[in-house]
């Protein structure tokens, strides 16, 4: 069953990759687009497929993997299947800090946007965790309410920053709040990689601890988890994943909620197996979501966050109805 699911996942990734690159390349057949991948054919087709589509796809894959991994880790750490970087306001915190940096920093310092996004995401995570703590550890209800509060605060901050942004910066600042891969470049992908790979290694290292934490803090501490240290590390890793994703692609909701759930249904609870599969599935779903965002109302391009919300909101409602 799991073996077959692994094959299906690999197939899904392959389909997502191929479709994102070759579907509906203007003025070229699918065959020509495939040929362009290998570097052959007309130069304008090569430019579209390799120069524009490939970095966009790579960014979508990396961001999808980052969000899914962050969601899976937060759900375990907070022992709450409803935890999601978007719903908890963590992406919002990253976006607020990134918009502020984009609107206010001098040109030379714009390289700091990912760091700012990560710091904003870390602050939001800390606030949510602090607000959601009850006498028996974090409570699911309080946590969602804390997310509502943080999201409200961050959107106010974002609107303020948009009002303050000088007009040449406005479009870029706005893009952070929309969620889109349109501005992808090979550089952006390379910049994002450390924000994805380092936290991924950290989270895999703490996989067993996170499996124990999924049953609550007291129970995990009794089984040898160094709570404070693990919590700090995992929060930072999740903040780096969300911050990196937000800095390069803006706010994209629900990937972090939906993907780990589907992965759990298929591959079970073992954290490391779950994390890897979640990341790959998140990558595939996000790439397909971006394809849909480009094609659904073509030639108008939707922000990819709209597509993930359309798919994610019913899922969230269903989960909420089922929650005890």
């Amino acid at each position, binding site marked *: 069953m799991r073996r077959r699911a692994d094959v299906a996942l690999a197939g899904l990734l392959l389909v997502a990759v191929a479709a994102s690159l070759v579907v509906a390349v203007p003025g070229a057949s699918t065959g020509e687009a495939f040929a362009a991948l290998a570097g052959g054919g007309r130069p304008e087709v090569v430019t579209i497929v390799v120069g524009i589509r490939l970095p966009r796809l790579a960014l979508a894959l990396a961001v999808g993997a980052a969000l899914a991994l962050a969601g899976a880790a937060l759900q375990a750490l907070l022992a*709450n299947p409803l935890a999601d970087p978007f719903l908890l306001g963590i992406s919002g915190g990253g976006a607020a800090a990134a918009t502020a940096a984009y609107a206010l920093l001098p040109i030379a310092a714009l390289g700091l946007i990912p760091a700012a996004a990560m710091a904003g995401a870390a602050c939001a995570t800390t606030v949510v965790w602090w607000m959601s703590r009850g006498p028996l*550890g974090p409570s699911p209800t309080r946590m969602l309410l804390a997310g509502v509060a943080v999201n409200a605060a961050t959107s106010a901050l974002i609107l303020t920053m948009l009002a303050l942004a000088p007009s040449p910066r406005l479009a870029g600042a706005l893009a952070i709040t929309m969620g889109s891969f349109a501005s992808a470049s090979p550089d952006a992908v390379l910049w994002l990689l450390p924000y994805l790979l380092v936290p991924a290694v950290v989270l895999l290292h703490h996989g067993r601890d996170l499996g124990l934490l*999924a*049953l609550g803090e007291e129970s995990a501490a*009794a*089984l*040898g988890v160094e709570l404070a240290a693990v919590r700090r590390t995992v929060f930072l890793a999740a903040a780096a994943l969300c911050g990196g994703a937000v800095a390069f692609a803006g706010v994209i909701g629900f990937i972090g909620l939906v993907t780990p759930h589907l992965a759990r249904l298929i591959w079970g*609870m073992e954290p490391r197996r779950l994390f890897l599969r979640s990341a790959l599935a998140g990558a595939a779903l996000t790439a397909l979501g971006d394809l849909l965002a480009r094609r659904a109302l073509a030639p108008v391009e939707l922000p990819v966050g709209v597509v993930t919300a359309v798919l994610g909101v019913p899922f969230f409602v269903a989960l909420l109805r089922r929650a005890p």
Partner: protein
Amino acid sequence: MTLLRGLGLHGGYGGRPVVRGVEIEVTEGRCVALLGPNGAGKTTLVRLLAGVLPAERGAVELLGRPLHAWRRREVAREVALVPQQVHFAFPLTVREVIEQGRAPHLGPWRPPGPEDHAAVAEAIARLDLAGLADAPVQRLSGGERQRVVLARALATRARVLLLDEPATALDLRHQLDLAATIGRLREEGVGAVVVVHDWNLALQIADELVVLQEGQVVAAGRPEETLRAELFSATFGVDVEILRGRDGRPVVVPRAASTAGA
């Protein structure tokens, strides 16, 4: 041999003291029953002893060494805690939960080996869970979940067991089984602290009774020395009759809310 010892323990939550100056000792092959009214500090004391709640004053010593000098994972190999409640937010199977008991022995990366599989299988058998091993734990009843968490603690093969109300949701047969299991573990040299509300269960399993009231020990010692009707009126505000069972063991029968005393 003394396994675990609490010395002048004070502790609580957010500056509110719940346990105030408790001395307690867990020795090899002996079982301490921890009793007392609701809110007396039994759960807090157990948390302090397990080291999941740091003591505000006083110290816990594990094998003669203060708890803070141990790494958490080392403590978890020697001391297993069964909390009153474990929140099952995810659909783990019974076996997956019990396998978590081996985590302190494995560290972050080592995969489970034959000894780990044997410990898990033994714990499953001891708590009569073979038929449920592959069931999702969320579907189980309260008593079945309690047995699963207890099995997870046994799977660690720790020398000290701290059980916080392990019997509240158990049916009569599984209560008897629990008493028998604790008896066998005691013979194997395990030392245990068991929080119970049922005095008759306590008398069945314990070598020593410790009674807490408002965070302090108000009575402690061998059951036959500790068991006095006055203790019940003073501590619980209840009049009891202490009878003798056919095997000579005392049986506590509550009669009425006390008119005198507390």
